[in-house]
């Protein structure tokens, strides 16, 4: 009977194709939403693993997390480097890794940090060695691919994260290592020492901030937030032990030594210093809940599209069940049972729904592949085509179930057809 069901579908090919397309649109939308939300959530979880707290300049805590953990936003500002010593001296801190942000090379962000940064994301050197001294850089796997940097290559950083920043031609980095892929944000970064970033900006020593005194032309949207006033006269910031304002860093990634630190440190920092402490877990949850509301709305719309497709299946099969009354009677006369005759209608609903579901899922993955290749911002938040999500099976099963449901009433109509009456009418 599958052959007969397929023949009926072929017989009204255009309508069948439109039915399938409508269902596929809904399924593709649902699958894209599912994949994007799950991939973003996974990426956020992976990227923030091992980081309990981020300490940076006052401002939006979400912005601080986005810029310092996920490297997708501009930093809130800078904080004195001496803040690092303060945190490292705290008994509740197991690890504090500084970040100096604000520059890039061909779209890959340059992160001034310390070698333990690699341990946070479990990054290992695939080729060469780790950075150790001023001017040395290691490049994440994807950054190496997109920038074309290889070991031994020298390059100058560009101010900001956009393409329109001015180049820091006065200072050249040398690539000493390429990282193995980690599936985390590290893949997209260029890592170097903190003082390399200072040197790039002309800051020669920790106690001297030439950078603040130099005329600087910052374009709108540049990531490097030079809060010159704050740097010269930090509002209640931790002062350098030598008495002057300390060289800036952008943020500090903190890992707690114990659970008590989670209770004490954030509030102590936010209350007693000019610094801001933000929890990646909290901010990420907040962000995902904001996304979640938008996703829920989009998901509702996607279901509406899919249901419209399935409703059209119902209407078309109901009309078909009436139109092919004679066919079904003949089929019965030829020896098919009631169930076989009704089964062809059910099969049609199932085949349309299955084709729509398969096409929709394939389209979703193709769409994500296209999106990830066209838009670096999507890649930045972990969106990609390849990974299959078990939820896709759920979507397919739901659509198949609804397809059968849409065909049920037309199939019952065929099942209940009185053969003799139909033949009397039709012959």
């Amino acid at each position, binding site marked *: 009977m599958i*052959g007969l069901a397929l*023949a009926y579908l072929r017989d009204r090919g255009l309508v069948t194709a439109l039915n399938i397309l409508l269902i596929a649109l809904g399924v593709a939308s649902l699958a894209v939403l599912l994949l994007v939300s799950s991939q973003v959530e996974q990426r956020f979880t992976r990227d923030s693993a091992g980081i309990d707290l981020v300490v940076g300049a006052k401002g939006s805590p979400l912005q601080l997390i986005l810029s310092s953990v996920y490297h997708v936003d501009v930093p809130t500002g800078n904080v004195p480097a001496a803040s690092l010593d303060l945190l490292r001296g705290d008994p509740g801190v197991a690890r504090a890794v500084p970040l100096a942000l604000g520059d890039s090379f061909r779209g890959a962000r340059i992160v001034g940090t310390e070698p333990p940064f690699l341990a946070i994301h479990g990054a290992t050197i695939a080729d060469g060695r780790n950075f150790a001294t001023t001017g040395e850089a290691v490049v994440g796997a994807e950054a190496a691919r997109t920038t074309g940097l290889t070991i031994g290559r020298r390059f100058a950083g560009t101010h900001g994260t956009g393409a329109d920043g001015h180049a820091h031609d006065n200072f050249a980095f040398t690539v000493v290592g390429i990282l193995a892929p980690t599936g985390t944000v590290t893949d997209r970064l260029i890592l170097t020492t903190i003082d390399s970033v200072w040197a790039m900006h002309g800051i020669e020593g920790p106690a001297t901030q030439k950078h603040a005194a130099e005329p600087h032309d910052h374009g709108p949207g540049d990531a490097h937030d030079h809060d010159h006033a704050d740097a010269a006269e930090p509002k209640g910031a931790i002062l350098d032990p030598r008495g002057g304002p300390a060289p800036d860093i952008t943020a500090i990634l903190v890992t707690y030594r114990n659970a008590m630190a989670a209770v004490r440190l954030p509030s102590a920092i936010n209350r007693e210093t000019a610094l801001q402490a933000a929890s990646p877990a909290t901010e990420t949850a907040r962000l995902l809940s904001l996304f979640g509301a938008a996703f829920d709305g989009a998901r509702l719309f996607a279901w509406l599209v899919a249901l419209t497709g399935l409703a059209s299946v119902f209407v078309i099969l109901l009309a078909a069940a009436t139109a*092919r009354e004679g*066919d079904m009677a*003949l089929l019965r*006369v*030829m020896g098919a049972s*009631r169930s076989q005759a009704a089964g062809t209608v059910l099969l049609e609903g199932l085949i349309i729904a299955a084709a729509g579901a398969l096409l929709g899922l394939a389209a979703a993955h193709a769409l994500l592949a296209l999106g990830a290749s066209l838009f670096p911002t999507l890649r930045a938040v972990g969106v990609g085509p390849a990974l299959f999500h078990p939820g896709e099976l759920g979507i397919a099963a739901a659509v198949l179930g609804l397809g059968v449901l849409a065909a049920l009433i037309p199939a019952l109509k065929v099942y209940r057809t009185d053969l*003799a009456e139909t033949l009397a009418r039709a012959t």
Partner: protein
Amino acid sequence: MPNALELRSIRFSRNGRPILADFGLSLAPGEQALLLGPSGCGKTSLLNIAAGLLTPDSGDVLLMGERMPARAADRDALRRRTVGIVFQTLRLISALSLRDNLALAARLAGQPADGIDRLLAELSLSHRAGARPRALSQGEAQRAAIARALVARPALLLADEPTSALDDANTDRAAALLVRLAAEQGSALLIATHDSRLKAHIPRAIQLAAAPDRVAA
């Protein structure tokens, strides 16, 4: 060997109006007969009763010696095994090609599909094997309906006004084919018709009158 069809004391009425009263008929295996009578005299009802598509008010229907079962599913099974029907207008499944129609009919009857090409050739339909029913002419469609019924190799072939829509030339051709092919494969044949031209092909005729009081010829 039991009769292909045996109707005993059949009574049938529709909407309180008697159509058949104490009607009896026997058709031996391979035997051919015409069921003649004016429109509305009960020819189609009689064929439907013989095929188990209608249940008589009383009387017995036996196909190849097997009594027509009361259960619908069992009636379907008996019909599938023993009966082929050619209708006046309901000829083929609309979505299937002619060849696929014949293949489906053979499969439902549990018969091999290897005779399809020969049958199509016999009925001069080989060149239309891939055509959909709506693309066939009246004559081709009626020959195709005969092929569809014969491919199941039924013990009893029932035909309801098989030539009513055909011109003289096509009537003669369709009737001749029906008679010859049914005979070749040993199927008993009962044709319900008001077309007396068919007497030229099948000598035995059972005349049904408009009144219900009638018996087998």
